[in-house]
């Protein structure tokens, strides 16, 4: 017992040291700001004058008296559910399909599918396509084909703009977990596949479920974290497409709600409380998914 104390202390030192370099930045630039945000959520702060304490008022108002919050929560969940799993799935399928192709095309296809994420704010191009104008790409095509008689205001008409946003978000979300999957697929153990073929696996789909997926649990987890954080954090894309705020808040998301109160209405306290709520939701989702993916691996 005595002997192990000395060496174990030393061992800890090395661990803490290696961890410490990064940890300093983490605390200062991430944890403390998060802490400050949480503190602010209990105050009334308009950025220019000193904040004053209001207790749980912000939270009460947010959860009980804010219609727009409810709407944005609903929208965010809908977006997340539709684009999260679907985007995740599509990312994975594409990664898997690309893996099936020949060595030569693979790099090219990888770059191609990852490009939306690299190219910055290229998604603005979608505004040309869905433009409200009768000369907008989609409108003019449909008008020409006789399907439409008058142009549709894709981005401002609440009957349509929600779906437009979903399409574009899907487009953007394909790249998120994509890289992790590609890398993971490359690193699978070949021998397992061979022995599986002998054992009676007959097509690629069975192989996927029984062999591929369980080996990729780490990558799937990373993919899940990324997907959750990006699909819940959706805000820039709907704003760029349908305006901020969108007509009757039809594509309003939690992030936009936070930004609205933070930057436009200058009520930082309230915005911070919304951010905390958002955070709690994301953490809850993470727990659920975490359990799910780990059980996949146990199969």
């Amino acid at each position, binding site marked *: 017992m005595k002997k192990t104390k000395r060496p174990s202390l030393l061992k800890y030192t090395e661990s803490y040291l290696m961890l410490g370099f990064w940890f300093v930045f983490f605390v200062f630039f991430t944890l*403390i700001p998060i802490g400050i945000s949480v503190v602010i959520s209990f105050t009334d702060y308009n950025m220019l004058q000193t904040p004053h304490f209001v207790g749980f008022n912000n939270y009460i108002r947010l959860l009980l008296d804010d219609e727009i919050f409810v709407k944005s929560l609903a929208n965010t969940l809908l977006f997340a559910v539709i684009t999260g799993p679907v985007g995740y799935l599509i990312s994975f399928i594409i990664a898997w399909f690309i893996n099936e192709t020949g060595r030569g095309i693979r790099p090219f296809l990888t770059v191609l599918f990852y490009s939306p994420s690299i190219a910055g704010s290229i998604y603005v191009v979608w505004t040309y396509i869905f433009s409200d104008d009768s000369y907008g790409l989609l409108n003019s095509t449909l008008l020409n084909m006789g399907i439409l008689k008058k142009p549709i205001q894709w981005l401002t008409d609440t009957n349509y703009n929600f779906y437009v946003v979903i399409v574009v978000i899907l487009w953007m979300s394909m790249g998120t977990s994509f890289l992790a999957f590609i890398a993971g697929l490359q*690193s699978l153990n070949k021998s397992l596949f061979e022995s599986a073929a002998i054992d009676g696996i007959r097509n690629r789909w069975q192989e996927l479920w029984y062999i591929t997926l369980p080996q990729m649990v780490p990558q799937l987890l990373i993919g899940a974290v990324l997907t959750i954080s990006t699909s819940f954090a959706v805000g820039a894309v709907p704003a760029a497409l349908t305006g901020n705020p969108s007509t009757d808040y039809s594509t309003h998301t939690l992030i936009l709600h*936070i930004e609205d109160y933070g930057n436009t209405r200058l009520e930082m306290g309230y915005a911070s409380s919304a951010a905390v709520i958002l955070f709690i939701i994301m953490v809850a989702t993470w727990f659920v998914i975490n359990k799910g993916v780990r059980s996949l691996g146990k199969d």
Partner: protein
Amino acid sequence: MKQNKLNRSTGGNIVVILFLLIMGLFTAFPIYFSIINAFKPLSELYLFPPRFVVYNPTFNNFKDIIALQSQATVPMERYIFNTVFVAVATTVIYVFLACLAAYPLAKHNFPGKEFIHKLIVFAILFSTQVTALPQYLLMSKTGMLDTYCALIFPALGSSFGVFLVMQFIGAFPDDVIEAARIDGCSEFGVFFKIVFPSVKPAWVTLAILTFIANWNATGTQVIFTESLKLLPTMMNQITAAGIDRAGVAAAVSFILMIPPMVSFILSQSQVVETMAYSGIKE
């Protein structure tokens, strides 16, 4: 062998190819569009609906960038240097710090380890829009604003990289590490000589992601001095002069797109290569 792949039917192959084709077109379209816009003369840029093909392609927009820069007080080389320096410095430092921190988190046992694990995951989930203001306030009070530090340090606080590398190191076989320790290696030695080289795909991936994210950052919120500004900011300043500069704006977004694309293309083959040959033993 006649069959290159196991269990692959032609029907299945066709499904794969068709799917990829459709998705590929869907993905690439907006990017293609941005590229051709850079080569359109002013008269074609304003056409509505926008054209898919350039009728009179020209390099003038790019030449204009140089011409406009000739009148600047700060030479263009400085902006390029700033952007490259910040992106590279952030990437190098962050990759190093993140890997170094990920190792003990994945392979050691020390008090607080589980707690820090949780912190790391949760921090990824907290939206960055809200932390922007407190970060700004902190940097301002410590006098970091308007320096290179203001551009580099906040990125170093991200926990995403640590999380990513942590998973990969976690999969690394423990017996190799034990062997090295028995041989008398310090933990630092184990890390540098054994673990780090082996998880190359992980940190190469991280490097690409970090570089791309930082390249596109404009840093406008924290930098006021002209000579410290980044390339995207300078480009935006030029185009803010008005519609006259619309052609230049298109050329600018095209150029800004190139380094991330190129670095991705180059390092991507690296990743695949390494994967193919590294052979994680089982």
